[in-house]
């Protein structure tokens, strides 16, 4: 994998700067069309193909991670309370997950996909900000699976520390997410969706991921 996660640069960021201006993102995408098309970049105009969208396959993996994992009983209110998949931020996998993940059940437990966004702190005073952040942190910690969308790449370290110790299985397609301390890191490899598993982090989290999943993973360690 990619041995050096960009942790030092991103860790200093505050919540306010997590999401870049939406207009800017759209504009950058437009710029990318022409920039990339111009010099043999693999990310330029790609027409609809008859192969599946990698985002959808990744979202199916996230649902399967929920299916093939076990949480301590204390993580649920009762025997039929849902498995919550949080989608923090936005990317194509998150969007596909919202469409795909609901209406699935694991035994008696329904799966619920819950879109999450960092709190809008504008106009709040200091104490309200703290409260909003605490509420947001609690929302994240309530999830059983947390999919961190690529829009949150810059904040992934603070997100991971927010859910530490809360038995949350962290999943992302952000590059080097597993090396940065995330648990399951999806990527496209050799035209197939594959994933890295940071087994140390998974074991430390208290979530048990089935060996059926882990045997398909490439093992990754946290890189300091």
């Amino acid at each position, binding site marked *: 994998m*990619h*041995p*050096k996660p960009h942790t030092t640069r991103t860790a200093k960021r505050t919540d306010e700067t997590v999401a870049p201006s*939406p*207009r*800017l*993102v*759209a*504009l*950058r*995408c*437009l*710029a*990318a069309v*022409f*920039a990339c*098309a*111009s*010099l*043999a970049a*693999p*990310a*330029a*105009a*790609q*027409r*609809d*193909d*008859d*192969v*599946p*969208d*990698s*985002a*959808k*396959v990744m*979202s*199916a*993996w996230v*649902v*399967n991670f929920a299916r093939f994992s076990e949480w301590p009983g204390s993580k649920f209110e009762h025997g039929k309370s849902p498995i919550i998949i949080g989608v923090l931020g936005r*990317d194509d996998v*998150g*969007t*596909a997950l919202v*469409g*795909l993940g609901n209406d*699935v059940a694991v035994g008696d437990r329904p799966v619920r996909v819950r*879109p999450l*966004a960092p709190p*809008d702190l504008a106009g709040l005073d200091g104490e309200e900000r703290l409260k909003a952040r605490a509420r947001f942190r609690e929302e994240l910690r309530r999830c059983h699976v947390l999919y961190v969308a690529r*829009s949150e790449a810059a904040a992934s370290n603070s997100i991971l520390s927010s859910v530490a110790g809360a038995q949350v299985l962290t999943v992302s397609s952000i590059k080097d997410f597993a090396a940065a301390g995330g648990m399951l890191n999806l990527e*496209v490899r*050799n035209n*197939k*969706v*594959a994933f890295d598993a940071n087994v140390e982090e998974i074991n430390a989290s208290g979530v048990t991921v089935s060996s*059926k*999943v882990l045997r*398909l993973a490439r093992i990754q360690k946290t890189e300091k």
Partner: protein
Amino acid sequence: MEDNIGRVPRRPWRRGPLCGAAAAAMLLAMSEARVVAEPPDVRDRILLDLSLDQLSALEVDSVAGVGQDWFKAPAELHVLTGSDIRRSGHRSIAEALRMVPGMFVGRGDANTWSIAARGFNGGLGNKSLVMIDGRTVYDPLFSGTFWDIQDVLMEDLDRIEVINGPGATLWGANAVNGVINVTTRSAKETQGIYLSGGYGDEHRGFGAMRYGGRLSDDGWFRVWGKYRNRDSFEDADGNDAGDDWDLAHGGFRTDIEASDGLSFTFQVELYGSDRIGERTRTPVPDAHLLFTTSQQDGRAEGGHLLARVRKEIEPGSGWTLQAYYDRTERVTGNGFEVSRDTADIDFRHFFTLGDHQAIIWGVAARHTSDRTRASTNIAYDPRSRSMDTVSAFIQDTFTIVPDKVFLMVGSKFEHNDTTGFEVQPSVRAWFTPDDRNTLWAGVSRPVRTPSRTEDDTILTLGIADTGLLAGGAASGVFIPLNVTGDDDVEAENVLVFEGGYRSRLNDRMTLDLAVFLQQYDDLIFVPAATVGSFNNDGDAESYGATISLDWRVSETWRLVAAYSFTDVQVHGPVANSDEGSTPQHMAQIRSYLDITPDIELNAALYYVDSLPQQNVKSYLRFDLGVTWRVNDHVELSIFGQNLLDPGHREFSTFEVPRGVYGQVTLRF
């Protein structure tokens, strides 16, 4: 892996236009705080029914989330994916271009193609720029492309992007009528073993292999080789064209993804053939317009080294630095020799400025030098020549109305040894009222700089008796009828007006329409007598339209249909071979059908209008292929090409024959 993988439905859902719209919506509507759920799509639910092993084995589109950039491009952009090409049965880049709406592909013989959009096929296509993996492959000797040697491992082809029309602002001179940009996958995406081989009556044996492996945790490589052997063509009377040929080609590529968005690509390729068959027609000295015809094998060889560094600072912001060295040598059937060395370096930087501007700029330099050796009827004066080109470009995209109206302004500034300083500006605007419609328009002024041929050639078309030539009695004094280059020839310039409309008619149909008007000044031609010096006495207009429809009829069936109209009018006292060499009407229908998840039936029907100048009648071409994936590792295919007739002319008196071939592919 388990046995059940062979039963994986390979394409259970089709990524329909619906999710494309969602992607586009995401792209442009990110200001909304909440995720807008995509309507649940029953087709996707099947993903959840797959076993973990099946899910692991599923092939996916490797480019996530950028699938819809094509839809909003403010140019006549057509994209052939690797899958389109694999399913077509076309076995070379040149042949695959038949699938591009508005693109004319005419085979002069087994190893010569004439390819162009918007007219001016010029034998080898003199107004288009062709690039493979960032490397320019059109030859400045004649501003055309030797299509026989342009080759990649088709399995590793990612896509071919074609801009019909000018692309000069970003790409530079010669990108007047089109840019053909061929991209292969990175080494990371082509891991494992690939072996294929096949045989047919026209494709007389071909084979390819690739091994992709890892260099390190973040480095990948592939090494590959291929060989092809093609039969000769015949004319209608059964005379052999003597144009059978072969080509061996191999390469190595490595891709390294370092930290912080930095990535490196290095590749080296070599190719060669000592059998590029040709029927040559040579004037007989001291005889009035008498020619000898003989069959001779030419040869070609060459290779390149390319290195590229890319830095992505954040999405839409970064830079690329690329350098390559390319060498190519060719000896034609009649003994003319040319070799060329090219060194090229290119830097590009793209970034956003404020919330409303996206800027890309770059600088590039190229040194190319050739050496020629004359044959009896082709010579260059001087025999060797070097040319240096330096260029810079800048292009700024403004958001006029957020998410809806955009304006792109840019220009290329280029200095070359032949014509000096050239400015190539372009303005484009587009309007995306919603995710389902794009309306675009553009005005550009590209130029085409004269080729080495137009500057320096001495081409002897024939030998004539002066008396007979004057219409009198034989004088016994013979003169050569020459076409000669002229150093004073200026660049051709063109004013292009174009526009287009794309619409998702419904969840399954996408319509793409483009129109153009191109006004050419100072076109380089030879005088009407076909003898004399190249000059800038030609002017021309061309206009036309392309319409294409992509229809996903069902989960297992996709249809693509296209029609194009092109009209070229050349004026001036020039030998105009272009008006009658461009088909006015072209049409195609392609069908991609999955009979079962493991059996594909692919078909294509092409119509090409007559070419009076080339004595070519209109024709229909029909290709049909069946591919059976026996299991995850083995694939069998049989393709029939040009099935409707035993042979037809496309760009010469030699006929493109019917052909059938079979292929076995192994992947591990």
